[in-house]
């Protein structure tokens, strides 16, 4: 057979930009028939973007896509399905209001006409039986009523059902994230059988053991590029971690404020995540900057919100002894009042200080805003302008000013530096350190490892639990990756 024909799909020099962000930067990627390709990398390394291109849901800004050696110029989801390429997306994509059989129908235009319900039900039930014997799911169950694990089982099984279109390549994006060890094992065993019978798979997983054991070839991505691609046998855990994280040590900002804070300063926050089973807890003292690390969505935001709630209403397991302010991560939906001026956006957390009688004093509001404009360098001709007149980075500064200008002694930061330019970042880091030195406490969730260099202590989260506690001198990227990728024991 010709070499070109054994490639199910090949991408050459694929590029994708989202605004100024380069999500993919000239990636070459291919899958041959009868192999399972493992794809690993950090959050934001570009794995999902790449897979969206393979599945046809995103168009590349540059580069070529070829399926079985034929260049595809009008590649789309419909085209991909016709060519036998399917994807199980990480976000659940079942319709919660429909039954399992009806959800199966959505992926099979061929399931129509008299008796389609029976056919759809038989199709999905047979596949569920094949992959997950003892699954306990009925085709009549409504998707929204199933547990998240079962929904994921249905979704995986649905991707492997066949009617009219062929089935050659299935992309599994974190297919085991909601499965327990037993069903995950069943799924991976099925993937091996599928591959042995000539099908192909792309397996994305944060559980490195799964990838090492089940992939034939492993592709490692970092910062929108493929940094390594080799037979799975050529990798071991340490090599994977090192390739993903970048071996070069990052320069530390450490030196300038290495002076350890006295351990005796008063405790401001003592919190245990709701799902924590062992005794680990987060303790933050006055003047400390505490980092919350780990993969995105592993309970860091939940803990911050719980601490925020505990400041006004007592919650078991969380002790907060000072006023709290939150700097939201999703600026547009959780941070900004779009119709308001910059001054009003800053003043909202400090209304009691700004009050004069029953009314808000515009003078005091303007004074507060002006103070922070100077201090934090918000670039605007007039603080009375609408907040949207500011650039993204300056909007974020205004949100910091809202928190720091308030009476809050504890500032919670929910990955606030997403999509902010490096200049603004450095200014804000400086400010945070300065405020901490004055005795404020910061709890800082970040997905960017270099930001953790600003922290005194780092707690690494996995599955809603604290799995590791690192002092600043122990902090290395490898250590954080090791803990956050640690396979569930």
């Amino acid at each position, binding site marked *: 057979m010709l070499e070109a024909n054994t490639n199910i799909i090949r991408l050459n020099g694929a590029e994708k930009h989202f605004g100024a962000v380069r999500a993919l930067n000239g990636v070459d990627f291919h899958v041959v028939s009868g192999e399972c390709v493992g794809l690993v990398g950090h959050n934001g390394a570009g794995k999902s973007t790449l897979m969206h291109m393979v599945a046809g849901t995103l168009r590349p800004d540059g580069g070529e896509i070829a399926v079985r050696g034929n260049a595809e110029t009008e590649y789309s989801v419909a085209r991909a399905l016709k060519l036998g390429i399917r994807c199980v997306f990480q976000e659940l994509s079942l*319709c919660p*209001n429909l039954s399992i059989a009806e959800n199966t129908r959505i992926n099979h235009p061929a399931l129509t006409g008299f008796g389609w319900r029976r056919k759809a039900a038989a199709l999905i039930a047979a596949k569920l039986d094949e992959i997950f014997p003892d699954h306990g799911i009925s085709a009549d169950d409504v998707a929204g009523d199933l547990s998240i694990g079962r929904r994921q089982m249905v979704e995986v099984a649905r991707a492997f059902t066949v009617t009219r279109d062929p089935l050659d390549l299935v992309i599994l994006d974190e297919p085991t994230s909601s499965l327990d060890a037993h069903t995950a094992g069943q799924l991976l065993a099925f993937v091996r059988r599928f591959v042995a019978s000539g099908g192909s798979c792309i397996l994305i997983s944060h559980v490195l053991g799964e990838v090492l054991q089940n992939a034939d070839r492993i592709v490692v991505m970092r910062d929108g590029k493929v940094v390594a691609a080799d037979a799975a046998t050529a990798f071991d855990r340490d090599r994977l971690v090192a390739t993903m994280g970048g071996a070069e040590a990052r320069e530390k900002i450490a030196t300038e404020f290495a002076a350890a804070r006295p351990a005796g300063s008063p405790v401001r926050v003592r919190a245990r995540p709701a799902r924590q089973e062992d005794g680990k807890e987060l303790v933050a003292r006055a003047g400390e900057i505490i980092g919350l690390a780990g993969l995105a969505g592993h309970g860091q935001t939940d803990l911050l919100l719980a601490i925020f709630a505990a400041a006004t209403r007592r919650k078991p397991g969380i002790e907060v002894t000072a006023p709290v302010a939150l700097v939201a991560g999703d600026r547009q939906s959780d941070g900004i009042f779009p119709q308001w001026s910059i001054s009003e956006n800053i003043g909202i957390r400090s209304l009691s200080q700004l009050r004069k009688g029953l009314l808000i004093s515009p003078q005091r509001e303007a004074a507060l805003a002006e103070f922070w404009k100077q201090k934090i360098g918000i670039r605007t001709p007039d603080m009375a302008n609408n907040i949207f007149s500011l650039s993204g980075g300056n909007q974020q500064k205004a949100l910091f000013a809202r928190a720091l200008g308030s009476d809050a002694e504890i500032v919670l930061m929910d990955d606030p530096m997403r999509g902010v330019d490096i200049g603004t970042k450095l200014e804000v880091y400086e400010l945070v350190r300065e405020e901490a030195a004055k005795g404020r406490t910061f709890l800082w969730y970040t997905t960017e490892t270099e930001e953790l260099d600003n922290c005194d202590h780092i707690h690494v989260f996995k599955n809603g639990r604290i799995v590791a506690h690192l002092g600043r001198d122990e902090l290395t990227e490898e250590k954080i990756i090791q803990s956050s990728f640690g396979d569930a024991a």
Partner: protein
Amino acid sequence: MLRSLLPALSLALVVIAIAWLNPRAISYFGFTLMLNLAIPIALATIAQMFVIAGNELDLSIGTFVGFVGCVTATWLKDAPLLGVIILVGAIGVYALLGALIHLRNLPSIVVTLGMSFVWQGLAILVLPKPGGKAPDWLLSLMAFKPPYIPFPIIAALVIAAVVHFGLMRTSYGVILRGSGGNPAALRRAGWSLLRTKITLFALTGLFGVLSGMALIGITTSADANIGNGYTLLAIAGVILGGGEFVGGRVSPIGAVLGALTLALAASPLLTFMHIPPDWQVAANGAILIIVLAARVLISRRER
């Protein structure tokens, strides 16, 4: 479980209350009289249900029914061909609204609120003062008196069965409901959301037309304001029937039951309770709040 039975339970409750207040109402003639207006309400409710299935809302259905009524009482009788063309064109306008709302990503509440004034204005142009006359075939259809079972009940059963089959059992009905449940998933599976939206809005237009015609078949003549109350009745009927504003969770059978409940609770029940007409509208609203509150409480408990 209790939740899916709630539409039937609330209807039963209203019927029992009527039977207790006035046993003579529970008869062939009683039901024919009490459910007089139930058919157009049920059709308008089904119309509203289609847009709600796609996570949209139609605030113009009431004035649209009024507009259709005015066309029915004038052109459809005097110049049937022109009348049919206008009504089919009106359904086409609904389809275009669906396309507009999808393509420009507009809030349907805004678009249909605007359209409600357009329909109202057109209705007044067609029929400046109350009058007109329903076509004879429509009059005789709505006056049909089948043996044993009152016509409105048979009509309600037929409407519920037809729409249930079309939306809940056919393979494209699944796609229509899926477009309310998880549009992103549908798009990824290669379906056109533009097409589902157009289809849902066109169905709303179709059932709005049927509602307006049925209404004029009963009242025999029209008035530009005749359907104004239907907008909120239709929304309430869908919700009473177990539907939800978002998520594609709707039930045609429930919607028809909801419409019947509203039709009975509207004036027969209140008249039997000796509530003066001045207070009936307010009392009607109170009943609605109680039933919907019960629904929220029950579904919260089941979660």
